[in-house]
Structures are given as C-alpha cells and as structure tokens.
C-alpha cells in the first residue's frame, strides 16, 4: 500500500512536530560554526556567546549534544501562559496562541527544560490551557452542521486531534440533510 491506513484520514503528531521544527528559535551556541547553506536556508555563523537564530530541529540537535542553550520563545514562560489561561477561562473564544505552540512547547520542554524558568509551572499551565481549549472544541461539536464551522485561533495539534471525528461527523450531517444546495458556486 502506498500509504498506511493510519495516515489516510489525518496527519500524525510526530509529522506535525516535524513541520513545526522548521520554525526558527534563538540559541546561545557553545560551539563555533561557519555560516552554512542548508536546504531550508543559510544558518550561522555560530560564535559563542552571541545568539543565533536556527531552526528548532537544529537547536534540538545541538542541545542534545550540549552544544547550545535554547532561548525560550517570548510566549513560552509562566507569565505569558498564565495570562492566556486567564483569558481562556474568562472568554468564550479561543485565545490567540502561536499556531504550532503545542509542538514547539513540547519539544523545548523535552530537551531543554533546564534552559527554561520554572518548567514545571509551564507544563502545568500548558495542561490547563489544553483542557480549557478542549472544552471549547466540545462546544463547537454541539453546533456542528453540514455546512461550516468557524474555529478561529484553533491550533495545529488541536485541529489534528479533533479532525477524524469532526470530519466524519460533518460528512454524516451532509448525508442526513435533504437536498443540500447544489454544488456551491463561488460568487463573482
């Protein structure tokens, strides 16, 4: 088979992590490296202790070999996330977070928690955020129909988690509704 069953209806979390790992983060390198052309762009030069911007996958690679410190993105700290959580629990809409915040936060927490301030607090805030936002997706499910469901600020990993059953449910609505309007034509 050209594509395994599990990959036909959705995308896997590791695949989303792979995509997210292309995003740039700041590091403090502990080794020197000339500016180098990669397929995705040129990175470097690395000159300790000067900061440099590299893709997350490269930062993870260097970090695991103890060749850099990762500087947390501006949103990955307890204060910022606490504000988002307050917003999340007081407003009906999804609060605005970076589209791939789940993936990036997990990767950095996994390999570089020693570079973060109060990583445990961050973990627990992320967990609370996740739960508050899941409750909102659930509200979305209640209003699902055969036509359209707007989900502003829903993030990559969250979409992926609800995708299989949101898509299937909407398909079922489409079949149960009588005479859905003829093929929607775009208006001029």
């Amino acid at each position: 088979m050209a594509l395994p069953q599990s990959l036909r209806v959705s995308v896997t979390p590791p695949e989303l992590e792979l995509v997210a790992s292309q995003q740039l983060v700041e590091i403090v390198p502990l080794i020197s490296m000339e500016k180098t052309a990669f397929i995705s762009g040129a990175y470097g030069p690395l000159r300790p202790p000067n900061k440099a911007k590299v893709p997350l996958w490269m930062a993870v690679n260097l970090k695991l070999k103890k060749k850099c410190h990762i500087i947390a993105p501006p949103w990955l700290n307890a204060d910022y996330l606490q504000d988002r959580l307050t917003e999340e629990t007081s407003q009906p809409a999804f609060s605005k977070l970076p589209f791939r915040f789940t993936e990036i936060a997990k990767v950095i927490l996994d390999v570089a928690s020693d570079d973060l301030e109060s990583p445990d607090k961050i973990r627990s805030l992320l967990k609370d955020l996740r739960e508050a936002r899941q409750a909102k997706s659930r509200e979305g499910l209640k209003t699902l129909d055969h036509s359209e469901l707007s989900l502003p600020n829903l993030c990559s990993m969250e979409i992926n988690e609800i995708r299989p059953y949101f898509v299937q449910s909407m398909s079922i609505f489409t079949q149960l509704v009588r005479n859905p309007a003829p093929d929607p034509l775009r208006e001029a």
Partner: protein
Amino acid sequence: MDWDAQYELLKAGKAIPQAGPSYTTRNESNIDDDDMRPVLPGRDPGDEPERRRTNLILDEEETVATPLERLTRHWMNERHAPDILPAQEDLLMNLLDHLRRQSEAVQLLREDPSTSEEEHMRIMLVQTEIERVKFIVRSYVRTRLFKIEKYARFITTTPEVQTRLTAAELDHASRHAKITDQHFYVSVLQSLPEKQSHLDDTPLFVPPMITEPDKTRPVFVHALKQCPRIRLPDGATLEMEKGHISLMPYSVVEQLVARGEVELI
C-alpha cells in the same frame, strides 16, 4: 524503495529531462567549491533568515518563500484534500536536486581525513536536514500514489484529472487500472454473462462502479489572505479574513486551494 531509485524514477517521469537552472548550479558548485563545504555559492545566503521573517511570537506570518516551505504546504494540502491536486513537478525536481547536491557534499567531506571536529558537527546537521527533507518528499509522493491507485480507473477515464498528474504518475495509474481490471476479469467477470462483465456500469440505485474522490468531504481551511466570498452548503455566504480557520466541505474551497488563497491544515 532505494532513494536513488526513487530519484531516477521521478526524474524519468519528466517528458523532457531538462537541464534546468538547478543542474547548472550543481555542476558549478562542485567545481568552484574548493573546500567542498555544503555551502551554496552563487548567492548570498546571508539574507535568508531575514527574508523568511518567521515570527514565533504570535502570528505565524511566514511568507512561504523557500522551496521546502512550499513543498511542505503542498504535502499537507495533498494529505487533507480528497481530490488529487496538481503535481508540483518542478518544485519536487528542484528539491531532489538540492538533496543530491547536499548528499554529495556530505559524502566528500566524510571521505576527507582532514575534516575537523567542527566540520563533523556541520556534517551531522546537514545530514539531519537531508533526512527531514527526504521524509517530506517521500510522504508527499506516497500520498499522491495512494490516491492515484485508489482512483486509477477514474483517472484513466477523466482527461481533466490527467492534467494534474506527472507523466510517471499517469503511467502508473494506467498500469494499475489495467492490472486490477485483468484481475477482476480473470477471477470473476469472465464467468458472468457478457452484459454483467463490465467495470463501468452505472446501474440504477447503485453507486457508479468507478470510484471518484468525494469532494463533499470536509477539510480544515486556513485563509492565507482575504478570500473572495464563497457560498456554503446551507446557502449562507462567507468571506474569510486572512488567518480565518474553518471546517467545511472541500468542494466549497476547491478553487481557493487551487489558487493558493487558503491552505489545508
């Protein structure tokens, strides 16, 4: 499949194997680059990170500029769309070519005993990226292959779809359709009366025998710019602002996907 074999297969699919700009660059780069670092000469790589302006703060305002970013977007679109999207042959060839150049450079550095410790770190990073890019390329190609096999009969009977396939993909579709037809014929159809031994009947009250992509399947859409008004299945209209995210049937946004005004997420 072996990587080089896959490369050759894809390359062979081109009607005319073009010695495009990327090929010339490769030749030059190998000759000019004395120390064989995997650094591309011929352009200033310095402005790349600035140009990309990937902003991790809040809004993912990336301008999709690099070939890899473009392929990643096509890969995700292809994974989510029920239909087969137009092949990105030039983009793919460009990346395959780049992959090959990087691999060759790594190979040369590896064989060089004078390669320093620092260089080894660089080789490792370049190698890591090569694997990442290979994964995306493979998954993209396989995603298309899956749909092509599933809708092989539909493809062979629908000229419009054929325009979205590469020559190699089209050839694969025809052969796949032929093989399954033969299998059905030998194992079942030849024993049935002539009237019932076809694979393209459209009997009443029964779905058509040729499986088509189900364009009513919903997809998650992310507007990359302000989109023209679309009409939804319930009759309402929607004008998506840039950044808008919605779940809706693919048929509603098919044109927007084709024009790159939205991406599937």
